[in-house]
């Protein structure tokens, strides 16, 4: 699923009859709220990272001492001396040094074999199931959209970075909001003065015209009240790891998204759920380099993000969830890639997380139609995060779902 098809997915599945339209926010809206009604320190925050396209789980968490791994994917396996061992059987992809560092500090939970029953190999259906947390296609709300509806109304409660609302945040009547990227240019000089004249209140004008004037005024306010947040350099990240001797820098879209989130979280935005994403994981051909590069981006971006949050003290409040719609087929295909598979590992990262492995590792010798078994239902993770991070009973949001990942979070 490239960027294009990710947009198609969003257009399509965000679609089918969504009742509640997304609020489109500007950074100003959020930064103003961060100043006027900051999130109380110590309030837990959930950051959801969606990997579109189906990340290859076996080349993310690698069974590096299993001979079947090497015989099933001769051209796209990682040698045992290149990977980053977690125990005697599993290791991280060589590009994931950042997450390995966090693992060593016991901040990373890896839940193995995660999926849903009767796997569907379609990107669209699978992603729809993951984002709605429902098996039926008729569901038109996302699991976090339904969470939004359990909370007092606040357009800043749950925000997606990017201009299209993912189904994840769609509620039946109310939804999360979107923050388009790259909208930080504000009028300056004489244009700013002109706009400021145009934005004055005018007696007797309609509520909508007044709203149009206010939107111009808010745009200008960026340079006053909000510049401390936006213009300041990204919070210092002193303990960034380096990759191949270079720095782990932010020149890709995911780290840009997380940079904005880091600034706004540090400033005290009253937002409890952030959604960001990275596409391109649909590695049907010539997989090894592409997937490694992408998962490296994820690892570096997340590490950098958590590090940026440290000066403000918010890093201890943030829990990061990383998932993809499915893993990939165990055996490589004829194009040195892999086709759509079933289960894969899910990462939950943060100070509040009890680091370690959860769920059973699916066996390579016991495949079902060439695919890994699903050993953990994805809803177990959602339920644990709803209750452990968002402090909301999961039953009403997940249709009475009973499963949990025991002791995933510190109490």
């Amino acid at each position, binding site marked *: 699923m490239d960027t294009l098809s990710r*947009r*198609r997915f969003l*257009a*399509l599945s*965000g*679609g*089918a*009859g*969504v*009742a509640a*339209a997304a*609020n*489109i*926010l*500007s950074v*100003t*809206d959020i930064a103003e709220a961060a100043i006027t009604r900051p999130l109380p320190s110590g309030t837990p925050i959930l950051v959801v990272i969606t990997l579109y396209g189906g990340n290859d789980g076996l080349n993310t968490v690698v069974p590096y001492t299993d001979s079947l791994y090497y015989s099933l994917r001769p051209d796209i396996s990682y040698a045992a001396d290149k990977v980053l061992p977690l125990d005697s059987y599993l290791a991280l992809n060589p590009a994931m040094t950042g997450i390995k560092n966090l693992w060593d500090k016991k901040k990373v939970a890896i839940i193995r074999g995660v999926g849903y029953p009767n796997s569907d190999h379609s990107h669209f259906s699978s992603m729809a199931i993951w984002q709605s947390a429902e098996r039926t*296609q*008729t569901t038109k709300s996302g699991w976090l959209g339904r969470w939004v509806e359990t909370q007092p109304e606040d357009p800043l409660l749950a925000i997606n970075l990017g*201009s*299209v609302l993912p189904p994840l945040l769609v509620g039946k009547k109310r939804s999360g909001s979107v923050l*388009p990227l790259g*909208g930080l*240019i*504000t*009028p300056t000089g*004489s*244009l700013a003065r*002109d*706009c400021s*004249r*145009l934005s*004055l*209140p*005018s*007696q*007797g*004008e*309609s*509520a*909508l*015209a*007044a*709203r*149009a*004037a*206010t*939107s*111009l005024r*808010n*745009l200008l306010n*960026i340079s006053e009240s909000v510049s401390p947040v936006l213009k300041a350099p990204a919070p210092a990240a002193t303990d960034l790891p380096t990759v191949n001797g270079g720095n782990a820098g932010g020149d890709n879209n995911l780290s840009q998204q997380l940079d904005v989130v880091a600034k706004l979280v540090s400033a005290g935005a009253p937002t409890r759920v952030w959604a960001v994403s990275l596409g391109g994981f649909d590695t049907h*051909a010539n997989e090894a380099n592409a997937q490694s590069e992408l998962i490296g981006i994820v690892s570096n971006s997340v590490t950098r993000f958590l590090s940026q949050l440290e000066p403000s003290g918010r890093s201890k409040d943030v829990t990061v969830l990383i998932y993809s719609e499915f893993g990939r087929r165990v055996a490589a295909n004829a194009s040195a890639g892999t086709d759509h598979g079933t289960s894969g590992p899910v990462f939950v990262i943060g100070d509040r997380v009890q680091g370690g492995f959860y769920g059973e590792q699916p066996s390579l010798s016991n495949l079902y139609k060439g695919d890994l078994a699903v050993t953990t239902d994805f809803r177990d993770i959602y339920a644990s995060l709803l209750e452990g991070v968002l402090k909301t009973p999961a039953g009403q949001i997940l249709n009475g779902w009973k499963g949990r990942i025991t002791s995933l979070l510190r109490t």
Partner: protein
Amino acid sequence: MATLSADQERLAISRLFHRYGFGPKQGEFEKALKSGFEATKKNFLTKPTTAQISADLAPITIDDLGPRPTPGTFANTEYAIKIRSQIKEMTLWWLDQMVTTDYSLNEKLTWFWHGHWATSVEKLNFALPMYKQNLTFRNQALGNFSALSKAMYNDGALQFWLDGQENTAKAPNENLSREFMELFTLGVGRYTEEDVKALARVFTGMQVQRTNGITTFNPRRHDNSAVTLLGTTQVFSAEQAIDQLVGRDDSSRFIYERLWYRFISSTEDMPINLKRDAFAGRDIYAAVSDLVGSQYMYSPQLAMVKSPVEWFVALCRALNITPSTTKNANAILGSLQKLSQLPFAPPNVGGWPAGELWLTSASAQFRLTLSQAILKNTDLADLKRVAPGQRVKYLQDLLGVYQWSKRTSEALNVARNEPERLMLLAINSPEYVVGA
């Protein structure tokens, strides 16, 4: 109609141009003020014939691209490029059409129906089916709603968009049938889940050729059993089922609600007792004419926000800019995308939102940026010929604005000696972005 005051006349004419069309072309508004609302309305309500509609169309050729070449080949890359360029060309074609058309009302209803039967090229991936759907809207925009509904059932783009080709007797898919009732003909809550299932069975058997939108009916995939739809049990053809839906009073109410929401007010509710007699025969033209003749043309407090496309097309019409031929074609499409409104790509089957969702700070900024880019390449010779002291008044008529507020007049007067700056402020003013 009661005799209107000069202010009411001006308001009614401004609403006529901006809501039932895409804004006045240069000189049109002034001329309309002279001839008065009644005469302008009569002229505006001219319903074009099919021949006139096709003569009004800018030429465009969109080929059927046929089957996709083998992945990884050069031909496949070319094919992918062709897909993108067709979509781009088609999008600019429609924007051009909105700007240049002589039949504003028909064009505006074409746009209305696109937002109503909202289908996106993002899923279709091919331009041709979307283009054909657009021609259907165009030819039936002011026709009969029952006929339009049947044409849309047979439309390849809509069928594919809502998984009609997946809907078979063995495995019914309810996507199309649900939206047909919820979003297209009745409105939510005016049918039951059982009706959705029943209609899905009636609708089984359609197949779509994705590259060209040609639909065929496959009897082997069709469920021909009797169903109970909205209280009637029989074997329905799709056409009979659509007649059953569209014939209901709920359908008349729903279409009036949608017209109200897009043409009169997205914030005030439609009066529950609004007369809907004009739509008794499901004649769209009669219903729209009825609204254009109503008090809602000049009654206060019914401000409407221009959506990004409406705002952009209106300024192109006033400034005589043809989008595809400017140096800014890419900037235009990019900005409309940032503003979340590209023709042929509605966000979902519910169409675009309306009202204050378009009034965020981010939208304000994107409008400013786009207008700066356009004005850089636009000759404002006519404005320059007007004496500076007259320019603010001149722009009020050129743009078809009801009234500048004191605030906006003052802001514009400060800039009156600099035509480009003056125009930039006028088209980004609250009075232009939001119509009185």
